[in-house]
């Protein structure tokens, strides 16, 4: 099963510079997450925060405003 809209981009949010899914950043940004949950748990999968849209997204989301992470 695979549900998908016509994408503006095929590049997923997980690779975007505005996307942060590090557990430490999530627990700092979402108050209460570590009271009875955890950013290190499996249920969170690779979800993270998009600082462009101020949304909590799956790494598999896509958006036309994608910007790549700087190459180092």
């Amino acid at each position, binding site marked *: *099963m*695979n*549900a*998908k*809209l016509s*994408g*503006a*981009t*095929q*590049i*997923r*949010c997980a*690779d975007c510079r505005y996307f942060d899914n*590090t*557990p*430490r950043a999530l627990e700092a*940004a*979402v*108050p*209460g*997450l*570590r*009271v*009875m*949950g*955890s*950013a*290190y*748990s*499996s*249920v*969170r*999968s*690779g*979800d*993270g*925060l*998009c600082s462009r*849209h*101020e*949304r*909590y*997204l*799956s790494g*598999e*989301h*896509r*958006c*036309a*405003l*994608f*910007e*790549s*992470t700087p*190459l180092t």
Partner: protein
Amino acid sequence: MTAKTLALAPQNNPTPWWRELYQKEDWWSIWIGLGLLALAVLLFVAGGSLKWIAVAPAKWHALPDLGQQLLANLPRYFALFVLLGVLFSIALKTLGIATRQFLPAFALIFSAATLIFALGQWDQADHYNLEPPLVALALGLLITNTLKLPEWFGAGLRVEFYVKVGIVLLGATLPFTLIIWAGPVAIGQAAIVSLSTFFTIFTVGKRLGLDRRFAATLGAGGAVCGVSGSIAIAGAVGAKKEEASISITLVIFWAIIFIFALPLIARALQLPTGVAGAWIGTSEFADAAGFAAAQTYAGYAGHIPGISGHGEAAINAYTLMKVIGRDVWIGIWALVLSIIATTRWTSDTGIEGQAGTGEIWRRFPKFVLGFLLASITVTLIARGYSYADYSKQVVPQLVTPVKNLRTWAFILSFFSIGLTTRLAELTRASARPFYAFSAGVVVNVILGFILSTQVFVGFWTALGQ
């Protein structure tokens, strides 16, 4: 997006699956829980036992008695602290939490947990309602809401990690045959309540004007697995950051109330232990909070007149209902809701979702695998013994030490809940999400009560015999 940007974009290489084996606390709870169980089994097979290091305070009457036994067993408590401290440090260091911050915090938490565990063994503890889970929670709440704790102390407050280790160890004390026997009923009862709760919150939320993604995030928090449910569905449907925060806050608000309220109401109604455990498992929101309530009720067994069934039945029924009946289905909830959000909930954000069946496994709470493996292991070992020999040899030499370690893990978790809960932050949710979530709470509690105490009462009562 420009062509240049696209050219700079890194290749879309998903993280290799095996990295999760050391990058997620679920897997670390399996390695630690099953590792301790393997050690206990090896020692048992060799004619020994893990009981020296799996120390637990004995019953005591007066303070000098307590001081004497703690002093006499000081090397054992220290050895247990070192064992758990080393195991947890390795796990958390790998996850990115600094050992130099974790260890001092853990030393303080472990010391407090020792006193809380010991207080529960006082022969007057029942008289004063000093159940260890409630004491741990209340003490933690008092400390964190009156004192300013240093930043580094937070490194030791890993509520979810401790409770997952405890659940894996709990598998060793829960016969696999019982999981097979009671699992389908637990799944059926949980499904009825979960679906009713979710649709209540979602419908009320929508009628109050909440965005559907927000209403779904709230609904999953109330219906599936609390904070974990909220955060998983928020990611799956792409909720706003503050919507995830508000949903989590509401889960914590009600979960804290229910830790105290559910055991007290069940006690007033003199519910059998299995029935109370099933109700708590159906109606509590977060794993750790529910274990605190179920463990509290387990402590009433044999002490409070009118409450029938053995104490373990409250914990077993709770675990079956919460872990098997609700937690394991989070991946399916996430898949279904992400498909609905992608295909039916239009958005002007320009963000597009993509959902596949892999979502079910990616979000599966892996610690449940450790719980099941532990249960199968001890059940297979027990098959080689008569009931008399099992009670005489396997229980004291193998099961009781593992149960003691489980209790330690749970007390560490309960104390950490209190220490991480800032009451002022729980009042920040605005009215509309509060009303929507609370509507689900009412349905959840009443339906859970009716199913546990009326529809399936014979089943859950039998669990405690």
